[in-house]
Every structure is written in structure tokens, then in C-alpha cells.
């Protein structure tokens, strides 16, 4: 049997599964996005772009902009936290401890996200753990919960490992001789970081960036639970169309606009990836 036939045989089951369970339903959704809501919350099939026009109204564009802002901030913070940790594991930790430390990064993800968010509420609230600790050392209490900072904490908490693991993977692969050469040639630590270490880990940064940015765009639990639902993000908006207003056609149109945004983001991440490969 030829390698080509083998490859086709290996690919077919998964491709067929995704065709039936993903592509066909998405086509049904696209058709729905061209229709309108019936009085009882069903779908009236039409061929109209009205829902897309509505999705581009200033009210909803503002919500899209806000979501992009949150996702960008989450990605930047995850990078700032995860990069040093990944570097530490890759270069400063004895080999035998590495896999344990990596596992510890993802272990919290085997508990429900909702349950972990509620644990954060217990930590942050007015009479919560952190304020009790502050009071114990004689400091005043803060309103830590139900604000944008709390949303950011929840988001970063939820996405951190998705940044750390690809970063670690790219650091493992990089050529250590380049780092040594930079040190031998007398470059300062800061300069070595900026001109050698960061560029070399660019593939990891791009991959992690995509993996964090995309789910953050659709975030809705952290804004609701930790932010006190005082801001609307695309995730909440889409959720509300299906689960509250029962306006599936508009929800579908919104989500196709969101998917378009995501594709733009992925395309943007491709350029540093390609540049890094050329290096």
C-alpha cells in the first residue's frame, strides 16, 4: 500500500467525524444567521443580512472592542507571568524535577472551572480570606471583588498554563550555544534577554498567544462571577442570545463575526511564527 493511501485511511475517520459533527452543523448555523427570530423564539428561515448589519451597530462594536481589550490584556499578563516560570523550568531546574513541575502547572485544571471561580470569590470578597489576612496584620480591607481587576485575575488564572506549556516547549528546543555565546561575548543580562532569549522563544510566544487570546475572546464566566456581571463581553452577549433572548439567528451572526476576528488574530500570529522559523 502506498504512503498516500495509508495517510488517507488514517485521516478519513477524524475528517468524516468533524465533517458531520462540526462542518454540517456550522452550515446549518450559517443558514440560521440569515433568518430571523420567530415570536416564540424559533428560527424563521430567510435570506437576509439584517443580523450582520445589527452586529455591526456601535453598541455591539463597543462590546467587541472591549472583549479584544480584555483578551489582549490577559494574553500580555499571561506572557509576563509564564515566560519566567517556563524559563526557570527549562534552564534552572534539574532534569528529574521538570516533568513534575510541568504537571503541577496543569493539575488545577482537573477541577471544574466554576468551582475554582467560586474559590476565588471566597478569597477576594469583602469578608474573604485575603481581607481577613490583611486585617490580621492591621491593614484595612479592600473591595477586591466585582471589578475589572477581579475579572483579569480570573481570566489569567484560567489561561496561564496554555501560555506556559508552549513557551516551555519552544525553550526546550532552542540552541543553548547561542545563549552561551551571547554571555561569552559580554552582553548584559538585559540585552541577552531582549536580543537573544526573547526572539528565540518567539514561536512559543506566538503559539501561547493564540491559545490564550482565542478562548479569552469568548470569556463569559469570569466577567459574570468575579466582575459582578457589570460589563458585557462577546461571550456573554452570544450566550444571552441563545439562552435568554432566544434569538438564535442574531446569536449565530454574532458568533460568525467573532470567528472572523479570531481568524484575523491567528493570521497575525502566523507572521512572527514564520519569521522565527526562518531564523
Amino acid at each position, binding site marked *: *500500500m*502506498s504512503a498516500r493511501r*495509508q*495517510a488517507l485511511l*488514517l*485521516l478519513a*475517520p*477524524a475528517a468524516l*467525524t*468533524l465533517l*458531520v*459533527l*462540526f462542518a454540517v*452543523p*456550522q452550515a446549518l*448555523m450559517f443558514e440560521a444567521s440569515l433568518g430571523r427570530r420567530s*415570536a*416564540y*423564539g424559533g428560527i424563521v428561515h430567510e435570506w437576509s443580512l439584517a443580523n450582520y448589519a445589527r452586529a455591526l451597530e456601535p*453598541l455591539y462594536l*463597543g462590546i467587541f472592542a*472591549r472583549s479584544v481589550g480584555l483578551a489582549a490584556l490577559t494574553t500580555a499578563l499571561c506572557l509576563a507571568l509564564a515566560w*519566567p*516560570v517556563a524559563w526557570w523550568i527549562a534552564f*534552572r531546574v534539574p532534569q528529574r524535577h521538570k516533568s513534575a513541575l510541568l*504537571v*503541577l*502547572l496543569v*493539575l488545577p*485544571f*482537573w*477541577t*471544574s472551572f*466554576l*468551582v*475554582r471561580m*467560586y*474559590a476565588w470569590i*471566597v*478569597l477576594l*470578597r469583602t*469578608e474573604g480570606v485575603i481581607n481577613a489576612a490583611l486585617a490580621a496584620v492591621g491593614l484595612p480591607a479592600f473591595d477586591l*471583588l466585582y471589578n475589572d481587576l477581579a475579572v483579569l485575575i480570573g481570566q489569567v488564572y484560567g489561561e496561564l498554563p496554555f501560555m506556559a506549556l508552549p513557551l516551555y*516547549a519552544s525553550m526546550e528546543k532552542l540552541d543553548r550555544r547561542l545563549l552561551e555565546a551571547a554571555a561569552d561575548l559580554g552582553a548584559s*543580562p538585559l540585552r541577552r534577554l531582549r536580543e537573544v532569549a526573547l526572539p528565540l522563544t518567539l514561536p512559543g510566544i506566538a503559539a501561547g498567544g493564540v491559545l490564550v487570546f*482565542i478562548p479569552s475572546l469568548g470569556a463569559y464566566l469570569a466577567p459574570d462571577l468575579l466582575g*459582578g*456581571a*457589570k460589563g458585557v463581553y*462577546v461571550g456573554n452577549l*452570544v*450566550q444571552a442570545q*441563545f*439562552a*435568554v*433572548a432566544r*434569538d438564535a439567528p442574531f*446569536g449565530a451572526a454574532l*458568533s460568525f463575526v467573532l*470567528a472572523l476576528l479570531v481568524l484575523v488574530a491567528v493570521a497575525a500570529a502566523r507572521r512572527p511564527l514564520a519569521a522565527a522559523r526562518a531564523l
Partner: protein
Amino acid sequence: MAAAEAGADVKRGLGLFALGVYLFLYAPIVVLAALSFNESRSSATWEGFTFAWYLKLLQNAQVMQALRTSLIVAFVSTVVSTLLGTAAALAFHRHRFRRAGWLEALFALPIVVPEIVIASSLVLLYAALSLRLGLVTVVLAHVAFSVSYVVVVVRARLAGFDRTLEEAAMDLGAGPWRTLFAVTLPLCAPAILAGALLAFALSIDDYVITSFVAGVGSTTLPLQIYSMVRSGVSPEINAVSTLLLLATSLLLLAAHLLERGRPARLCAAPAGLGLALLAGPFLLGGPAAAGGERTLNLYIWSNYIAPETLAKFEARHGVKVNVDLYDSNEALLAKLQAGNANYDVVCPSNYAVAILARQDLLLPLDLSALPNLAHVDPAFLDRPHDPGNRLSIPYFWGTTGIAYRKSRTGPIDSWNALWDPRFAGRILMLDDARETLGAALLLDGRGVNEEHPAALGRARQRLLAQKPLVRTYNSADFDQVLLAGDVWLAQGWSGQFAKAMDQDPDIEYVVPKEGSSFFLDSLAIPRGAPHPQLAHAFLDFVMEPEIAAEICATMRYSTPNRSARALLPAAIRDHPAIFPPADVMKRVELLEDVGEATVLYDRLWTEVKSAR
């Protein structure tokens, strides 16, 4: 010298920084594990160490059943998606396909598209195929969203892979399949394991997609948890989370020891313990679904009927009751509108009854089989959403009002209190378009079922003016936020506040003088119910005075059953939040479906919430 010292400082600093990040990751885990040993039911206070919640967990049949379902779904979908995904990753690795762009997109998009969109698109697909919602549809959905992740993980590993090894095998005469099994697969085993673990984690934590495609007997643990959140995350949930985490840690520890070449005996202990923890739910009173036995499939809100009450019905009729839970009328409507659920009895609110009735999705009731309907207070019968009770019987009702911490606020009797700058930052409003706009409408002297755009526009202005004073919008565990001391005033529903008042005497509940809304949840039988006769028997059973009293006493919502109320202890019968006096009942209005105006309500509410 100086450079070396600086290097050591950086090294130490880096280690400390990493320690800080690990602390950040584990702080909530420590909290949830600690809460599972807390004697207090509320997460607000620590009252001492106990194992009681673990024992309670074992006795909680619903949670244990949900855990079993979750493990079955996660296991099956992980195996299937790992097989499919690994095969596809190998195919991509070994062959450059023509028109690869489309293939790449097919495999990448499921990761990119928001979950809710995948969820509702699958609902459309299953409805088009008339597939019965249940375990199968849930497993298929989980496979659909995990395959792509497995492909990504395995491909990433293969990308840095030394092709010369495969070429060497081929040169030595091995065919493509032999090379695959003897060389390629063993080399990417760690990546396959990583992919499988990711698929398992995704499946066991999925809520959005599962909630849309679940049917009879497929309530998973996240569904159970979400439906329980209205009463706060209970210590039992923290206990089950801690146990799951422990089982996973043990299995990973075993894998770690094995990888480092420790003797099998040493690895067997953690592996065995971890597997035993996972198998526990199946050994301790596994699924009792005996073949041939008649079952009643009940789809209801959580905390709406006690297992002991269901046991009485099971004993009397020699049947088994299958309970699935939902947390919004919209979830129920989506299920019944798709037309492929399999439920015998459902519990829609009044406006949802009206929507279902107009779409002819409910079975007309045989009133002659429901003699106990005579015990129901006529005030709750023959309402506009169901004239003559042809389709539904009243089950529970309650009012919307304000609960407040009286030591902080003094007496409250008006919706204006929620607009009072003195309470800035101490106010909670429901996260619900109808209820928040409703309160503003009442202050304008309008009704809660207003459809006129101008009146609704003015109500929006009121809510915009109120927003800076609001601490949080919450319609899930608003009573817990009040109990925890984060807010002093909360808009919310009476049943949950009644429980809060029992826990804290400083909390008072009032239906404001401007009026308010009330809801009425009814039991109904969907068209196509497999056991309509048994469903009628169940409806009549819950209207028996003794049974209705038992349900009210255990769940603390208001029963519409007159005869049952007479049987209740005085503490419940005269509870001002559960059974408000007659003058209060005169100023509350039933919340009705507003038809096309639903979209306007949602838009105005979006404007309020997205305002800065």
C-alpha cells in the same frame, strides 16, 4: 565576580517568582479543599474540621449518579477522540495533502469557534436527524470538540520529530504500517498520553455544550454543579472536586514514577488508589436501572424535590424515577422545541408554559386522572398562561422582592431603596432583563409586563442612573452574596431568601409597596412523553396534601396547595417570605411572556450592562 553574583541573584529571583506563580495557581485549590472539611455549610465562615461532607456526598444519589455519568462520558469520548485524533495527526505528518487549506481549517476551527455556537449548532443537527438526546448525543458532542485538541498536541510533538528513523525503518524493508506501529507510535506515546489527558480534562469540565445536548439520564457533574449553584457551591461539591483532584494526582504520580523507571510495585500503589477512587462511584450502589422496569423521566429545577419524596412514589408504583436538572426555562424550551428529548414530566414557569402551549408541545391533561387538583388554591388555577389548566398544574410559586440587612439599612419598603446613594456599592440586582427593568417600570407606575418601547426606554434610563451604585448583578446565588456581607440590599426571589432568613436573623424580606412580580412553576407533560399514564400519576401524587406539605417543608418554596399549607408547621405556614399576607398578594403581578418585545428587553439590558 560581580557578574556571577548578579547571575545568582537573577537565579534566586527567578525561583521566587516561579514560587509566586505556583502559589497563585494553588490558592483557590487550597481554599476549595479546605471548604470541603468545613463544618459550616456556608463558605463565609470556618466553624471547624469535619469529614461529614464526604459522607453526605456518598449518600447524595444525584451527585454520585452525575459523577458516574461524567466518568463514563469522559472515558468513552477520550478513547474515541484520541484514536481519531492520533490517526489524523499521523496522516498530516506523513503526507502533504493537496488542498490542505480546507483540511487544516476543518481541524482548526472547532478550537476557534465559541462553545455556545458549537452547542446550538449540534442542537440543530440532532433535531434534523431526529436523534434522541441522551448519553450518545453527549458523547458525540464531546468527541466533536476534543478531536482537534488531540490532533494539535500530537502534531506538535511530531513536528520536532526525526524523520530519519522512519526512513531507516522503511529502507530496512518495513512497510508503512509496520513502520507506523514499530517506530512512529512508540516515539510519540508521551504526546498521545498528553492529548488523551487534555481530552479527558475538557470532557469532564464541559458545561455549555453538554447542557444543550444532554437528555434523559445524561446529567453530568458540571450540569449538576451549575444547577446547584443557586444554593451556593455546597461543601459536597468541594468534596467531590477534591476527590477528583486527588485521583488525578495519584494517577499522574504513578505515570511519573513509571517514566523514571521505578519498580512496578512502587507505582502500583498510587495507580491502584487513584483507580479505586475513580471506580468508587460505580462500586457504591452503581446505576440501578434494571431492564424492563418502568421509569418516569423527570426534568426539573434543582432543589425542587427531595429524593425521599421520589422514593415514596417509586415504592408506591413499583417504578424508577430518573431525574435530570436544568437551571433556566430557556434550556428547557430549547430541549422541547428541538423535539427529541424523552421526558415524561417537566417543570416550566408560567410564561414558558404559554410558549410551549402556542407551539403545541404539551400533552393535554386528563383532569379526571387528577382528583387531587381539588386541593390547589383557586387563586393559582385558570390563569391566562393556561386557561382551565388543560396543560399544566401549579407546583411552586414565589415573589420577587428585596432582602436587606436591617442592622445596616433600617426598615425598607420601596424599590427606591435600591436607588438610594446612601447604599452605594452595597446593592445587588438580579442579572435578569425582565426583573431589573420590571423594578424600574414599577417605580414609573407601569406594570412588569410592559411592552411599550417609550416606557421601556425610560426604565433603561433609571437603570443606567442606578448602575454606579450597584455592586453586582447576580441571579444565581444572590442570597449567598447577601449572607457573606458583600451587599446590604439584594433584589431576588423569595424561596432562596426564606432559607437565608433562617440562617441569619438580621436579614429581612419585603415585597415593595409599588408592587412586584411573582412566578408560578408548573408541572406539565410534553408531547411524545413515553409514559403519559405514569406522568399523570406523578402529577396527582405531588398534589396529595401530605406529599405537597413534605415538598414545601423540605424545599422552602411556596406551595399553591391549600390543604397542604394547613398541614405545615407554623414556622413555615406563617413565614412572611414563603406565604406573604393577603395585602401583599394584591400588589404582585404574574410575569408573562412579552413575545416580540423580548428582543427589545434584551437590547436595553445589554445597553445597561455595557455602559461604563
